[in-house]
């Protein structure tokens, strides 16, 4: 026990002695949490809208007006010709072009329908889909208005059958992205810091040559690993606490579930990450190699965690891979407990998987650490 105490003391001293590292460990993640949480939104708004009006009548103007008042569209400009509009889209200046044909009102009376040409920049397919929904809504509104204008009040020959849909958004009525993203980004930052620090740790001593000195001491393998793990575990928990305070005070993220459950889960989760880090550290020869590998896994962990893109949409084989992603479980648990108030029983599957993962990774870390060179 005393030996572990000494090695922990040594690790803490090394961390706090390196003045350049302290801001990286504590300040950078929190600044990122504050800033980047605002960036992560799938909402589609400020759509760069432009139009070509061949009609110039009150009807075409009232259609354009409908786009102007909509909060989703920013009317950037009107173009006299289609070729100018196309070149603006190539330039990236506009994303939607509406082309209103001439004689709108006359053709509407004559043929009962008129076709509008609408071009959407669809490189971001999902956003384009949403934009087309908005456009359809606006046009539908316009249709109602023009019908009243042309034929007077709607005929009272019995209203058509309608199914009323009432959307209800539980746990997040205003569809606020921040309540969704802040817990997730916090998870990312805690994971990154603990993974990178532990991943570079033992290999650094190898590279500098101080690991040999430790190897000749009577310390046991498991004691050494525990001593290495503990300081980073403390750092991870500290980061989580500060992050939770920020998310409560600044982003007003609700904490519906039990805080104790959150901490209990996190305390096990960080062990998984540290185990992975130390395993990488044991297995590599230079800090550079360790960092490459840690980076490789971190990018996979981030992009396949369901934080930014939904896991259900991934192909089957990719969903199987996500089962091995500890970050996925942390993101799930964090959201379940914080936003929905899930209890221990609800998160039991995630908790058990994380526990098995932690035991396996730390077992591997102890096993792969060789005291002989």
């Amino acid at each position: 026990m005393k030996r572990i105490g000494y090695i922990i003391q040594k690790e803490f001293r090394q961390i706090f002695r390196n003045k350049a590292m302290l801001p990286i460990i504590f300040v950078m993640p929190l600044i990122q949490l504050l800033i980047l949480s605002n960036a992560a939104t799938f909402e589609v708004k400020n759509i760069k809208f432009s139009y070509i009006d061949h009609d110039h009548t009150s009807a075409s103007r009232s259609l354009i007006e409908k786009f102007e008042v909509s909060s989703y569209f920013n009317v950037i400009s009107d173009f006299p010709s289609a070729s100018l509009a196309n070149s603006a889209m190539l330039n990236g200046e506009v994303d939607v072009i509406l082309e209103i044909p001439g004689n709108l009102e006359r053709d509407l009376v004559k043929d009962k329908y008129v076709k509008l040409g609408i071009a959407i920049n669809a490189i971001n397919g999902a956003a384009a889909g949403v934009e087309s929904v908005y456009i359809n809504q606006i046009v539908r509104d316009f249709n109602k208005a023009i019908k009243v204008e042309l034929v007077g009040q709607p005929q009272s020959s019995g209203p058509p059958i309608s199914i009323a849909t009432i959307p209800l958004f539980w746990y997040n009525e205003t569809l606020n992205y921040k309540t969704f993203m802040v817990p997730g980004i916090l998870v990312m930052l805690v994971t990154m810091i603990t993974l990178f620090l532990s991943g570079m740790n033992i290999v650094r001593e190898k590279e500098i040559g101080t690991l040999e000195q430790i190897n000749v001491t009577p310390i046991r393998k498991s004691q050494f690993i525990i001593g290495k793990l503990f300081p980073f575990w403390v750092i991870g928990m500290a980061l989580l606490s500060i992050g939770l305070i920020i998310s409560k005070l600044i982003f007003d993220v609700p904490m519906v579930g039990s805080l104790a459950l959150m901490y209990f889960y996190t305390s096990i989760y960080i062990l998984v990450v540290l185990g992975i880090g130390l395993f990488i550290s044991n297995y590599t020869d230079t800090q550079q190699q360790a960092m490459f590998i840690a980076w490789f896994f971190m990018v996979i962990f981030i992009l396949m965690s369901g934080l930014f893109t939904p896991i259900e949409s991934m192909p089957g084989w990719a969903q199987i891979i996500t089962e091995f992603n500890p970050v996925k479980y942390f993101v799930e648990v964090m959201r379940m407990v914080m936003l929905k108030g899930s209890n221990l029983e609800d998160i039991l599957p995630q908790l058990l998987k994380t526990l098995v993962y932690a035991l396996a990774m730390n077992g591997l870390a102890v096993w792969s650490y060789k005291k002989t060179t």
Partner: protein
Amino acid sequence: MKRFKGFVRKEFYHIFRDKRSLFILFGMPIAQILLFGFAITNEINNVDIAVLDHSRDATTGEIINKIAASKYFSINEFIERETDIESVFQKGKIKAVLNFEKNFSRNLIRDNTATIQIITDATDPNTANTISNYTSSILRNYQQELNRDIQLAYQVLPEIRMVYNPELKGVFMFVPGVMTIILMLVSAMMTSISITREKELGTMEILLVSPLKPVLIIIGKVVPYIFLSVINAIVIIVLSIFVFKMPIQGSLFLLGVESVLFIITSLSLGILISTISTTQQTAMMVSLMGLMLPTILLSGFIFPISSMPVPLQVISNIIPAKWFIVLLKGIMLKGVGIVYLWKETLLLFGMALFFIVVSVRKYKIRLE
């Protein structure tokens, strides 16, 4: 010039001697682009939903069949009571519950209207909103079928054309992004330790007493990595064309030039980090912690920049990855040439120049 050549050769030896790093350097980007290109999409498919049907009549059955038949949803559970909704959401698998009111068919016939609640788990607002929109549009189509015989007159019909990506493929959005992230981080990471490593190992002294000028040392450090990154870029472009069927509408030559420019920008950013850090650990933490999330989030790779708050839109301008993504999409999908892209090109060039100049000035030629 001969001295410089010798120095570059030394750098190459360093790199090629470390077989493991080399393997990682080339293997990982390939593994990542294959993995992410297939796996990352923000489309909604096969979302698990539950049904709470108070009526259980012919109409609700028909609607449920319509929803089950769509590729977006799979109906996973039938629940009996309102109180069950909370518990299925808390388990986390079910993302939405359709709640049919009592006497659905009868209301529809008698009053011409009936109500469905679409209750979504909005902890993920994007999925919730999309589910809600898709369900509504399925219901609207069904409603139109019911109203077939009623003439709808005086309509303006929008004919929407999806330009550059008619099939709304997710890969068109994500492959350029993944390519940018990989090139940026690999390049910056590789060079970020190149100078600190020499400081830490003590070999910096030898370089400092050599007659090589600081600017030559720094350029000599970058040159071998340009070579490696270009190979990486070629492999990634080949994969994205043949595996992900990305079109190259524009000029392949321009694509090559812009890629080299972006690589140089990222490498010089790495060098800059390396000149201002004292240990490898600091250098790597800065390049990993400092670059990873901002590059992923502020580059427009996943989240549209135009939807961000204005201060963040301003900040996003200093992220080199943002401009490279614009360039990639422009050349690959829109097929535009330098006439449309000179601004972005110039910006990347300016950034690279800035990083190199600052590195040279920050590079200390004396030991502390």
